[in-house]
């Protein structure tokens, strides 16, 4: 009975409550009146940004919000497409005007949200250069690494009305690439799991304190073997360039995936 209750709670607590910019895609299973009013979706945020001046807004925060929202969707999609978790726990939603698959498992959703919640302050300060979603086999050896390279260009102007559609279009293209990447990747061995790696611009040791945002969600240094994959196959998925964010996504795939 406890478990059944938790599953029900999964659907109710699916909205990203701890992330300041919640995913609008998660809201469809909330009961009316049981959740706080949904925060603005990306397009609202970007629209606001387009009408404000540089002085009015903390752009680092806006970029971090947009990026973390995107990364959350991307992580769910990667877990779905690469079958790290059973497809039965995923539900189809709409984000960036395309169908996406989002997990309805409360612990998994919380894990992803906590991870991104911790990364967000570093992104705000432009201290992250890569976020890697790494898929590991049963022996905890990496089989695939989805590398999101991030660069925040110096901001000159955001007055263009086309910014909204441009950024959304770029994020949509990246999600679409992830959704079809199974066609060019080899199948993963059964029993895979995942982790997220954060590469910082300065020494990671210096950022260790900054990333420990949640008390019971500690961070550690990754192992050398998790960073360096032997003779990986590199599959470029998408490079996007906008006024507020540059991002490049590629996959590193282990040559021999079978154990």
């Amino acid at each position, binding site marked *: 009975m406890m478990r059944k209750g938790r599953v029900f709670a999964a659907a109710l607590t699916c909205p990203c409550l701890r992330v300041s910019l919640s995913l609008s895609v998660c809201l469809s299973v909330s009961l009316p009146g049981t959740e706080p009013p949904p925060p603005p979706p990306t397009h609202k945020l970007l629209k606001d940004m387009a009408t404000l001046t540089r002085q009015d807004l903390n752009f680092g925060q806006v970029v971090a919000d947009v990026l973390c929202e995107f990364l959350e969707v991307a992580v769910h999609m990667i877990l779905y497409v690469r079958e790290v978790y059973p497809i*039965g726990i995923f539900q189809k939603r709409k984000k960036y005007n395309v169908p996406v698959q989002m997990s309805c498992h409360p*612990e998994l959703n919380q894990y992803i949200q906590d991870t991104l919640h911790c990364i967000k302050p570093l992104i705000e300060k432009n201290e992250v250069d890569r976020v890697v979603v790494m898929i590991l086999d049963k022996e905890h050896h990496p089989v695939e690494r989805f590398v999101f390279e991030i660069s925040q260009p110096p901001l000159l102007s955001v007055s263009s009305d086309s910014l909204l559609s441009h950024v959304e279009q770029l994020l949509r293209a990246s999600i679409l690439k992830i959704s079809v990447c199974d066609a060019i990747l080899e199948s993963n061995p059964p029993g895979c799991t995942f982790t997220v790696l954060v590469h910082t611009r300065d020494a990671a040791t210096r950022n260790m304190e900054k990333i420990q945002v949640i008390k019971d969600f500690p961070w550690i240094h990754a192992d*050398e073997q998790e*960073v360096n994959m032997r003779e990986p196959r590199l599959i470029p998925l998408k490079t996007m360039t906008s006024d507020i964010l540059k991002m490049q996504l590629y996959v590193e795939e282990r040559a021999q995936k079978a154990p």
Partner: protein
Amino acid sequence: AQRALEDFPKRPLTRFTPWFSNDLQNLPLKPKNHPPIISNEETRRIENYLAALEP
């Protein structure tokens, strides 16, 4: 339709190169906790719940 067969100016193809290389002197950070393992039983419960939600 004839115009579609005509040649057109092409942009030079760019070669994909990662922006950052792996620096083993500066290892990345990762969460200490592992993500949850989801049992078949839990999966079935979620599937049933989602099926019940559908109109």
